[in-house]
């Protein structure tokens, strides 16, 4: 077999250079900086830093509060990912069946995609306003004394709801296009074999949607871990108090509000490792079991 190749050694390197330098400057250099600062306790103004070894990490491991935040982040991520995917899949399957007015329905289901996370958070604040929020009143009507910003679980519920609401449209778009790319002959064959719509869905449609679903799973986990920052920041009004927060928000609270560079760098490094683990999991364990096309 003939291999296509470059005649000189330098041309490919030259062509890769712009991309590599962007990665180096904007990703590796700051990441290396964070790893470095995580071993120091530094004066925020940059006058001096004391090497403290792994103290910053040890403090985190020994902090029951940090573990509580980690546990909340895990539950939050599971809930947001599950409900975002499940609701979007349900809506996509239903929308796929509609023939008349399909475009209007789809557009209506997608528009929330354009809402920025802080705006979504702000809408959440209005809907759950303590004295006149419509959703607060709805909750009271069923005997739930909903108190955003006061009660930990109520605030967590509101955060999950807003984060899911914001993410469903993205998943919906992908699921819908995934459904539409399932070949018609396959569907027709299934129709002959199995008369139950539910059975056809689980036996044929769902496995064929797996590549889309897996891609969305990773996207949604990342969304819940990192991109919900704006929602959380708006909903706790910048002051977490006794309200729930995620790990990435804690990095901000300790580093940017509290000016503790070493401690928040150590937290960033932990998050970097988490993303690394997620990536390995994605490529090694799951990609092998899923068949694209």
């Amino acid at each position, binding site marked *: 077999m003939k291999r296509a190749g470059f005649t000189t050694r330098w041309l490919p390197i030259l062509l890769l250079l712009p991309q590599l330098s962007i990665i180096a400057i904007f990703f590796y250099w700051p990441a290396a900086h964070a790893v470095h600062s995580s071993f120091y306790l530094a004066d*925020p103004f940059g006058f001096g830093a004391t090497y403290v070894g792994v103290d910053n990490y040890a403090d985190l491991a020994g902090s029951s509060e940090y573990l509580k935040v980690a546990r909340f982040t895990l539950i939050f991520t599971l809930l947001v990912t599950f409900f975002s995917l499940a609701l979007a899949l349900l809506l996509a399957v239903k929308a796929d069946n509609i023939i008349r007015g399909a475009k209007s329905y789809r557009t209506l289901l997608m528009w929330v995609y354009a809402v920025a996370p802080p705006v979504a958070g702000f809408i959440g604040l209005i809907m759950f306003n303590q004295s006149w929020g419509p959703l607060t009143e709805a909750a009271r009507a069923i005997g739930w004394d909903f108190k955003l910003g006061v009660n930990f679980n109520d605030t967590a519920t509101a955060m999950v709801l807003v984060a899911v609401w914001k993410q469903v449209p993205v998943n919906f778009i992908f699921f819908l296009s995934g459904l539409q790319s399932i070949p018609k002959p396959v569907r027709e064959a299934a129709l002959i074999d199995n008369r139950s719509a539910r059975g056809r869905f689980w036996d044929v449609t769902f496995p064929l949607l797996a590549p889309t679903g897996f891609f969305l799973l990773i996207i949604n986990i990342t969304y819940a871990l990192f991109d919900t920052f704006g929602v959380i920041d708006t909903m706790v009004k910048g002051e*977490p108090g006794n309200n729930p927060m995620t790990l990435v928000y804690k990095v901000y609270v300790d580093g940017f509000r509290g000016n503790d560079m070493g401690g928040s760098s150590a937290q960033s490094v932990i998050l970097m490792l988490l993303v690394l683990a997620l990536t390995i999991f994605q490529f090694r364990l799951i990609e092998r079991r899923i068949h694209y096309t």
Partner: protein
Amino acid sequence: MKNLYIGAASTAFALIANTAAAEVEISWWHAMGGALGETVNQIAEDFNASQDEYKITPVFKGTYEEALTAGIAAFRAGEQPNVLQVFDAGAATVIGAQGATVPVQDLLTDNGVAFNIEDYISGVRYFYADADGKMIGMPFNSSSPVMYFNVDALEKAGVEAPKTWEEFQTVTAPALKDAGYVALSQSHLPWIFTENFHSRHNLPFATNDNGYAGSDGTEILVNNDAIKAHFTAVTDWQDKGYFEWFGTGWGDNQTPFEEGKVAIWLGSSGSFGGLAKKDLPFEFSATYLPYWEAVTKEPKQTFIGGASLFAMAGHEAEENKATAAFFEFLTKAETQYFWHRETGYVPITKAAYELAKADGHYDRFPAAETGIKQLSLPAGEHTKGYRMGFYVQIRDVMNREYGRILTGETSVEDAFATIEKEANALLARFSKTQS
């Protein structure tokens, strides 16, 4: 490219305003939004109009925390503003970083501006000073927590504003409850019910002279019986419907007072201007923070809250001269009186206070004098303030634990043990950054 742009812009500017070519321009980063921000802009405009050598440009940088972080980041990049507003909780960070700022006392005397610390009212004199009493930051928006009350509600209930917490829980609150009100809410548990609780009762808040003597070995003294008894009482009031907590946010607790649902609200003397402009459907007034007679028979003054202005280091001598000129303008009695009248923050000099009195401001609005009178009450051993590093995070810990007390997730005893433990760990960490 950037230089080219700046060059083009400055050429254009020079063409438009060649008469102003000799002006020295300085910048002022602040955290005053809304109506306060407009007043800040007015002061800057007045300063610029008062002379033609200097021009100051105020820039709004978000919340107090955001302004401080922006200032620190800019300092590290060598792009710091001339004047940076830093709030009370950030004072230890900025004062601890010697070399980040020019002490305001040095700045003024070096530039030929007369400075006498005795010109300032006693409550604000030493909060932003170093251990030797040298003023490092210029007190700017200085406030004190005061007790606002709905005059109509108190009349309806047939009670007076309470002087002590004993009076509140036995007389005021039950009467207000019968009259259909939630008696009390407050807007900042760490500031009002912790820091100023210690000052009002003259209790030590931290070792090393409340932290002023240096960060090394400073420990917080918050886990004491007086404050634990106070929080136990607060939860009791909550159970009886005398007190309601609406969350950590400032506004969430102020709104029910404005709506007439809550009769007494503990807020900032700096809230006065905003409340007066809101045209509330009831008459309101203000008085001193109550105290526990069981703790002290002689209540003392409170700390100032709010923020001060720091002259950032690393600027040319002529820019520092401009900053000194601005501080001189800012501390003039007329400027201070204008600021005090518009916002409710206290006038920081005795001359400005006298001017406000002479002008009859307090005859028109007696409540406007509460903050400064409370700051001028007798001082005690532990009333000049506190100086603790990573204090923003310590406040976050307090807010978290207090929230848990008030939602029944933890007990008063456990919460204060946690605050003490975590705060001391943070103080020890901060101390390590200072070596």
